[in-house]
């Protein structure tokens, strides 16, 4: 369910090369086995790999490299990229602010209906993002459940603003963070928290000084997943935030609209988004996810 969490078990016993000691020893001993993988596993595995790698490769193969500098400096391209990076980062911060406490609540406290709440939290994962956008309009729209009140009370209307982009992205991305963090919390050693409590630390101090550092890698992994999901968000954004260059037109929206009139431009935008997100994820992985 949460590969990013599983790839960072208790972060403590991962040496610098990113492979648990026992696993690397096993790999050294069994190198020959890799070539004796049963065909019935090897064949679908290679097919699966090709299926995942081929489309991005095609994007790179079809990129009009000669036009790249001119295309990238075309009006609106850098605006869309900047807007995407800013909104995805803000959405991730919002998710951290709300999602970490939520994950703690779901894995450290007992209350009636906890399983139901846990299931509800994952609803945005299975909801088509466009449906999410419609739902957000019904809550935060001018005639929405909260939107009408926000408008009357504070003169605040969210749809079609950059804030709406952040909200749409946070809505679809937060479950990734919550699942990641609550997985890490459940795997973490409760003994240390109990020890802190025995030594007189309150629940907030325990959370801040013991729990949070303990699940740090899980939080980081969740934040990275969350950011990547937010960066790619399309359906909820175009439904709830609309499409206006510089204000709500993020890269995925720009790619979609470019595809309708100028496929070459769409390819260039896609490659740019691919390059930026892969670079940032690689840097974050170096920094947080593999070091002890």
């Amino acid at each position, binding site marked *: 369910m949460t590969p990013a969490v599983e790839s960072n078990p208790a972060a403590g016993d991962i040496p610098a090369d990113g492979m648990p000691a026992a696993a690397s020893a096993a790999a050294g001993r069994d190198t020959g086995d890799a070539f004796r993988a049963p065909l*019935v596993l090897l064949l*679908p595995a290679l097919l699966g790999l090709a299926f995942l790698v081929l489309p991005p490769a095609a994007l790179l193969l079809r990129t009009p490299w000669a036009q790249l500098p001119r295309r990238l400096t075309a009006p609106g391209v850098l605006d869309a990229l900047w807007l995407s990076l800013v909104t995805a980062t803000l959405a991730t911060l919002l998710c951290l602010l709300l999602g970490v406490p939520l994950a703690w609540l779901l894995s450290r406290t007992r209350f009636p209906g906890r399983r139901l709440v846990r299931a509800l939290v994952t609803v945005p994962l299975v909801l088509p993002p466009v449906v999410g956008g419609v739902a957000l*309009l019904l809550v935060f*729209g*001018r*005639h929405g459940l909260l939107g009408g009140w926000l408008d009357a009370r504070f003169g605040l*209307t969210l*749809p*079609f603003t950059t804030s709406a982009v952040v909200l749409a992205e946070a809505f679809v991305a937060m479950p990734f963070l919550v699942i990641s963090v609550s997985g890490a919390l459940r795997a973490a050693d409760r003994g240390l928290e109990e020890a802190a409590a025995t030594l007189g630390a309150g629940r907030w101090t325990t959370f801040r000084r013991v729990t949070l550092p303990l699940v740090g890698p899980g939080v980081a992994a969740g934040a990275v997943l969350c950011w990547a999901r937010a960066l790619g968000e399309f359906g909820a954004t*175009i439904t709830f935030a*609309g*499409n*206006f*260059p510089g204000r*709500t*037109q993020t890269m995925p929206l720009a790619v*979609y*609209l470019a*595809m*309708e*009139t100028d*496929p070459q431009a769409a390819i260039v935008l896609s490659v740019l988004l691919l390059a930026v997100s892969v670079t940032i994820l690689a840097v974050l992985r170096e920094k947080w996810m593999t070091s002890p």
Partner: protein
Amino acid sequence: MSRRPVAAVLAGCLLLAIAACGADRRDPATAGTVTVLAAVSLTEVFTALGEGFEQSHPGRRVRLSFAGSAQLAGQIAAGAPADVFAAAGPESMQRVAGGRDAVVFARNQLVIAVPPGNPRGLRTLADLAVPDLKVAICAAQVPCGIAAEKALASAGVDLTPVTLDQNVRAALTKVRLGEVDAALVYRTDVRVAAGEVEAVEFAESAAAGNDYPIVVLPGAADPAAAAEFVAYVRSGAGREQLREAGFQLP
């Protein structure tokens, strides 16, 4: 040992199933079926025309798909299997192979769509430029956006909409939901949402009308059936339905 064949058979079945639903082969079973890609503003009238065509042409079937004209043109260029393309403007039609042979079968005009009772009292295009008014128009890539730009330019109105929609119905929906105060949509769209929105006609709309072209695509599976559908749209019965829907006729 006995599990391997089972797994292999399962995998084979899965691949076959994917291939079967993925590949739209032009087999004899689809002969007589006309696949029509049409602009989203034609949704209701073409659905009715499709039914009328099937009734008056026994053995013929019509499959309809609606989206923004620019999106459909992109799909056709990318090889989407289709027999007839009806666009909301000449720009999208020019992007498909064979688009030069298209004939104009209808004309449409922009109006200002407002909530019932026109609460903001909008009368002209210039009224839309009020700073706190939320307006949705179509993106410049799609026909209704091109028409809106022409109308605004000829009226000398500098408008900052809150959103540029990818098709005219997306703009209309925002008025229906009350999320915007006004949208520039086709007169025919307002008729579809009668009761939920009202139309405000404006002087410059005549200068910014759209011609709707239709064509039998070069890759049509059954060109004869496709041509029959196009002829039906342009026939007396077809024209009557288009007129009732609020289109002007060439």
